[in-house]
């Protein structure tokens, strides 16, 4: 064993590092940096948040839209959390590739895995706190998964919720975990990590078997600092360009969110829960959302015990690599499938192909060609409506669900007094209002889903045609 690895060099010279620097920055250090940013921004976010069902979303919205710097603070916090997951995962993958989980770094690997779990725990509890429909859906899944635990299910669900239903007690305990419990655990784990890391230093390249060390201060610190600056720039860019969304207020007795996807790192579990072929497994919820992720976590942590051969070169560790590849590929495919199903994505493609203005009014509708035109128009309009989340506030055209904070938009009205859309609004009003609701009449609070992108003239024309000129479906042809 080299002087580097048995720590003798450290005792002689203080902190040391391998003299041969490989070309990647230290992702672990970068993860630590963004995690520090997450903690720091979190401290100040907590000044503006109330963990109750009534106030949670309002307080977040207030921060984001009324408080100077609030949108920045929340955006940075959100993206710092996501970046930390990605960087920590990259760090783990790199270590795995170079056999960095093997002796003498086994303890570091286990602690590192636990740190990764805590980082994911931050992101998970964080996204459940916003008090909007999406968070509410996530809380429902948390309740169901906890409740599906064999034997102690009911107790687990109550422990998770702080009672028998999703309530302010639930938000308060998640907030306590997010801001008290997890930071304390993180700091303890980092301390333990530092203790073991002290004389081992950064993991070396698998081919580096030499004795050469340099003082740590020289070791690639410049490269890591430059990479750190790049990561900070990326963080600012993401916080600026992709601010975290906040949806409609959670309403426990309302119709629920039209699309309630969890955070990206949970999509693969959600996809498992979605698969019809797996639904027949006994207690599928627990098996798929509890047991499977739990076993994978155990596998990850137990890696150093499972693969004890000291070989570090990837070429000589086929079974390890194949196992990891299969698992990562599986998770990747599941996640990609879930992402592909998200409405925002499919709306994009449909709208662009069928949203064009073809200029036919109601009088042109005749024969089968008109039917297919009407279908095309319906499809185009419904993707736009879905993408812009109109149904969060409006009941549109006699739909089953829809929010009630905006007026009902029924193209053909009904006999019981809901007026026809064309009687309520003029085309000019429609174009001005729907074209740019925040500018035209900000007081109504009408805003589009952040992810929807701009309301282009083509989309506006499609909607106008659908609302004003669309033909009723044959069955309800009383208009």
């Amino acid at each position: 064993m080299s002087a580097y690895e048995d720590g003798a060099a450290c005792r002689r010279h203080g902190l040391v590092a391998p003299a041969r620097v490989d070309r990647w920055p230290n992702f672990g250090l970068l993860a630590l940096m963004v995690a520090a940013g997450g903690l720091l921004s979190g401290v100040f976010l907590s000044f503006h948040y109330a963990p109750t069902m009534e106030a949670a979303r309002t307080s977040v919205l207030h921060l984001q839209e009324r408080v100077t710097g609030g949108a920045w603070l929340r955006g940075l916090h959100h993206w710092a959390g996501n970046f930390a997951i990605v960087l920590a995962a990259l760090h783990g993958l790199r270590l795995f590739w170079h056999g960095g989980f093997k002796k003498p770094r086994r303890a570091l690997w286990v602690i590192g895995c636990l740190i990764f779990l805590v980082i994911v725990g931050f992101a998970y509890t964080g996204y459940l706190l916003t008090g909007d429909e999406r968070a509410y859906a996530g809380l429902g899944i948390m309740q169901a998964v906890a409740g599906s635990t064999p034997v102690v299910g009911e107790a687990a669900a109550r422990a998770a919720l702080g009672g028998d239903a999703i309530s302010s007690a639930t938000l308060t305990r998640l907030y306590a975990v997010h801001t008290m419990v997890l930071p304390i655990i993180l700091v303890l784990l980092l301390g333990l990590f530092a203790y073991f890391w002290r004389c081992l230093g950064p993991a070396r390249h698998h081919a580096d078997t030499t004795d050469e060390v340099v003082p740590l201060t020289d070791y690639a610190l410049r490269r890591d600092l430059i990479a750190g600056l790049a990561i900070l720039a990326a963080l600012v860019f993401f916080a600026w360009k992709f601010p975290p969304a906040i949806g409609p207020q959670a309403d426990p007795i309302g119709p629920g969110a039209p699309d309630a996807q969890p955070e990206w790192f949970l999509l693969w579990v959600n996809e498992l829960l979605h698969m019809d072929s797996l639904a027949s497994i006994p207690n599928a919820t627990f098996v798929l959302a509890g047991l499977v992720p739990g076993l994978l976590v155990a596998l990850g942590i137990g890696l150093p015990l499972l693969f004890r051969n000291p070989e570090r070169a990837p070429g000589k560790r086929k079974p390890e690599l194949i196992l990891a590849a299969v698992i990562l590929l599986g998770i990747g495919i599941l996640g990609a499938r879930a992402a592909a199903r998200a409405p925002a994505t499919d709306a994009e493609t449909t709208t662009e192909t069928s949203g064009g203005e073809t200029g036919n009014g109601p009088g042109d509708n005749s024969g089968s060609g008109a039917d297919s035109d009407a279908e095309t128009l319906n499809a185009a309009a419904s993707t736009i409506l879905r993408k812009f989340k109109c149904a969060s506030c409006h009941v549109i055209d006699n739909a089953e669900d829809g929010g009630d904070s905006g007026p009902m938009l029924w193209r053909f009205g009904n006999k019981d007094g809901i007026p026809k859309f064309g009687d309520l609004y003029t085309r000019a009003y429609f174009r001005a209002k729907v074209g740019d609701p925040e500018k035209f009449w900000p007081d109504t609070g009408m805003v589009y889903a952040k992810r929807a992108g701009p309301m282009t003239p083509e989309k506006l024309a499609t909607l106008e045609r659908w609302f004003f000129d669309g033909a009723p479906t044959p069955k309800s042809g009383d208009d």
Partner: protein
Amino acid sequence: MTQGTPSSPAPKHRTGNQPDTQVDTMNRRGFTKRLAKMFGAVFGAIFGLPAVATLADPVLGGGASKWVDAGTLAELAPGAVKRFKYPVQAGWETREEAGFLMRAETGDEVVAFSARCTHAGCKVRFKDDEFHCPCHGGVFSRNGDPIAGPPTVPLVRFETRLDQDHIKVKA
């Protein structure tokens, strides 16, 4: 492993691709240090600025008073005193605070007081034609002047005006 002597530090081990002269090492150290400082400054600015801005926001904003409706003159008999409520925008909430309206014995003049005691901020109550503070026994006259106990300053008055029959208070 044998211990190295204290006078033979790391350079013995520094091999590999970097040149190993004293001057070069110094330069690189200096550069790394400057880079570390720059990184610290950027990190501090990115997270520090929004933190300071959000902390300062409620301090610098707020304090705006608005005309609020406090009922009609007809509901307030000459010489009578009654409570009124006014909204205060605070953080993400609109809270209600209470004040008192006092109509002069003769004429239409209406005075509006804050219900906060000028001693240490407790809410005063109207009793026996005086305002009494429960905290340290302060007493104010119906005109809001301190007449007993620790308060030395009159109750805070709000601007009022009559709009048709409605009493408007700038609270």
